[in-house]
């Protein structure tokens, strides 16, 4: 069920008795701007910490515990040309609780808490509390730096920077940039906060045993005004480069991480979108895939070797963990797999298997309240609503020729290797 609450503010309700919880998601969607990414990430962190009524994280945490361990969080993500601040809250459906007693149902209490977080943050002097602000800025700073402790993440981040040199919105992580962060003040993010409330597209969604009346009533008193949302494309389009960007860093790692990025200029609204999804699943997106089979199972060169496809940025990426001295062999095997698919050498057996696997994954996602909620953003950004039956039909119709046509559009753009030096392990 879809409702327009205000101009630019929508509510989606997925009523079901399948779950013992009620899930809520609120997305604030803004155009992706390099200057705003970091401030929005910090704002999310500060809003998550406290509110006027719950002025410390302990006070807020106790309120969440009182609501039977409501899980609550604010995260940020990038999707194509959009930046999203996402609030999520999951509450137990009290019909499954012992001795719940006479009080408002947990869904209504959870919505009231989200309202508090969004519209009554801790602003003692009309600005964010200085101690909280400074501490959370520091925490975000260390969190961003700690991400690099994960060498797979680090290799992927460096690959993105290489691929999108000179295109900061795409090169930057959704958490922003440490140098920008250092210079942000409480006043800066107060402006970001006011801008978000006034101008972002707002998409609220609820999944669980809740009817339309309750869902609408719970959001009716949120002070959100009408807003004009420019209908700009969510797709990031970019020109292919003649030269493959090559990067390589030495770091004290035992296992080398070899990552590759390609352009695959097929977006979510393209007729070939489904074929691109199937191509990725066959190439490296599943354990049945060509990369997994040939790099890992046949050549024993890696523990992981997989690919990912982003239909909002038109990119395909490959991740592997290997011995540094095998880099050339692995690169050759990956290139050979792509070339084979481009020549139409995809077996009917593998095609059928990856289609079955994609269908399985799509149906399985219906069993996860979180995935039911997060899946809605795609529809909201693309205005493409595809019922399951239509989706299944499209999937079933994909042929080897379709996959071949998609594979021929794949162009290598960047390769990056994080390794432990010539000697490898230290």
């Amino acid at each position, binding site marked *: 069920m879809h409702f327009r609450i205000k101009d630019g503010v929508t509510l989606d309700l997925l009523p079901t008795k399948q779950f013992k919880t009620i899930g809520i998601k609120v997305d604030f969607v803004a155009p992706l701007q390099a200057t705003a990414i970091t401030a929005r990430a910090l704002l999310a962190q500060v809003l998550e910490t406290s509110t006027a009524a719950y002025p410390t994280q302990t006070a807020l*945490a106790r309120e969440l515990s009182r609501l039977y361990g409501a899980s609550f969080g604010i995260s940020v993500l990038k999707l194509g040309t959009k930046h999203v601040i996402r609030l999520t809250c999951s509450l137990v459906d009290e019909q*499954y609780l012992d001795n719940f007693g006479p009080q408002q149902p947990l869904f209504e209490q959870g919505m009231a808490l989200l309202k508090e977080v969004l519209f009554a943050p801790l602003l003692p002097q009309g600005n964010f509390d200085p101690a909280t602000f400074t501490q959370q800025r520091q925490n975000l700073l260390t969190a961003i730096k700690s991400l690099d402790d994960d060498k797979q993440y680090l290799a992927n981040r460096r690959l993105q920077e290489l691929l999108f040199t000179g295109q900061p919105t795409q090169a930057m992580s959704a958490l922003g940039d440490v140098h920008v962060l250092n210079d942000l003040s409480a006043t800066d993010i107060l402006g970001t906060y006011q801008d978000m409330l006034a101008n972002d597209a707002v998409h609220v969604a609820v999944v669980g045993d809740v009817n339309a009346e309750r869902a609408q009533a719970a959001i009716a008193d949120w002070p959100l005004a009408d807003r004009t949302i420019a209908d700009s494309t969510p797709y990031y389009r970019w020109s292919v480069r003649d030269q493959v960007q090559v990067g390589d860093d030495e770091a004290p790692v035992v296992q080398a991480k070899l990552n590759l990025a390609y352009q695959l200029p097929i977006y979510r609204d393209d007729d070939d979108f489904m074929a691109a999804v199937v191509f990725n699943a066959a190439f490296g997106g599943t354990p049945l895939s060509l990369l997994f089979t040939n790099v890992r199972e046949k050549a024993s060169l890696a523990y992981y070797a997989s690919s990912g496809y982003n239909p909002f940025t038109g990119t395909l990426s490959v991740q592997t963990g290997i011995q540094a001295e095998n880099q050339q062999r692995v690169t050759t095997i990956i290139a050979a797999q792509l070339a084979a698919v481009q020549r139409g050498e995809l077996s009917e057996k593998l095609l059928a298997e990856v289609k079955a696997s994609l269908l399985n994954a799509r149906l399985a996602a219906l069993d*996860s309240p979180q995935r039911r909620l997060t899946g809605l953003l795609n529809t909201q950004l693309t205005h493409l609503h595809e019922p399951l039956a239509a989706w299944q039909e499209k999937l079933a119709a994909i042929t080897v020729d379709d996959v071949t046509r998609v594979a021929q559009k794949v162009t290598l753009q960047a390769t990056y290797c994080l390794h432990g030096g010539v000697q490898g392990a230290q």
Partner: protein
Amino acid sequence: MLSKKKYDRLGETVYQTTLANGLKVLMVPKAGFHKTFAIMTTDYGAMDNEFVPRGQHQSVRFPDGIAHFLEHKLFEKKDHDAFDLFGKYGASANAFTGFTQTSYLFATTSHLKENLEILLDFVQDPYFTAETVNKEKGIIGQEIQMYDDDPGWQSYFGMIGQLYPKEPLHIDIAGTIDSIDRITADDLYAAYNTFYHPSNMNLIVVGQLDPEETLDWITANQAGKTFAPNEPITRVPSPQAQPNEIVAATTRQLTVSRPKVSLGLRGFDQVPTGRAGLRYSVAVSLMFDLLFNDTSDNYLRLYDANVIDDSFGYDFQVQRGAHFAQLAGDTDQPEAFAREITAILADAATQLAAAKPQFELVKREAVGRIVGAINSVEGIANQYDGPLFDDATIFDELTILEQLSFEDLLAAARDFLAQCRQTVYTIFP
């Protein structure tokens, strides 16, 4: 006989039986779900590296990492790989090895019967040769090295190694490059024949299913196979470190942005057997919640002093023959981190008494966590610990939690804390 246990308030039912060959089967139908998740587990893990092979009389010490190696190799058959069989139906399959268990699993939204048969057949039909065993050494070698670069993993296992310096737990579950190099096909058969007897295994199936029909499929599949007579398994108890042999503190250097501290506590008290063990486990976990979770006064104090931040977390686990806690986080003040947590634990009796008003709160939170896990077929299946807690399921755990009193918590906390030993493992940049 298929026994049936209903949990009325939750609207859930657990069906359970033991087949003639000893295989225990649990089923939990989930109305409205599209997916079915099945997991088959043997009570055998990385800890069990010395035992009397079935049919022999002398105990044998096997190379470290053998349970995990066996898990990898079980998928590969003479002319096919079990992964591919699941793949035909689009099911996703996987496996994992822990200290005391090895599990094989799949999730599917169609062809449950076929997928169940694939699972039972590949787990119950080993095929190991010198050639296939040698090929796997490269893959597992890469897996070991991947974890070498994972600071969180290194921090966790570094801590465990200090808590269990003489026990097999101090070695990585996957073994070492050297130890796996010594594994032979005969070793794998010896381990397989000893621990993969149906009487040492269980199968739990959760999700879209009809219990009677599903059991018929499983029974028919098992009836078509012959197994050796059931014999008791003789594991050689591993050497045990004395409390005074626990290494108090170690540091190590890795490429991390900030120091990582892992404070471990090894229990030397006797965990009660059966369901009482689960009650003990729930109670000690709640004790840690009261002392350290984000509703505690300690948390705010340490957070505001920048001793801990959002990376702080803790975990208590009970396994066959071992129970321990980890409190860990990234911090610029690793000494203060260890000092403060040690002080809180030393003062636990007073602190817990003072935190009594928060008891209902942390209990509610734990209840919410369990109810949330019941939403997921994996959540239900993975919470089942088989013989360890006398076949208790997540629904039993919820009942135990709801009935737990503050006095129960204090008693378990006293038992654990009075005899536990502490270690601190710090990784510096």
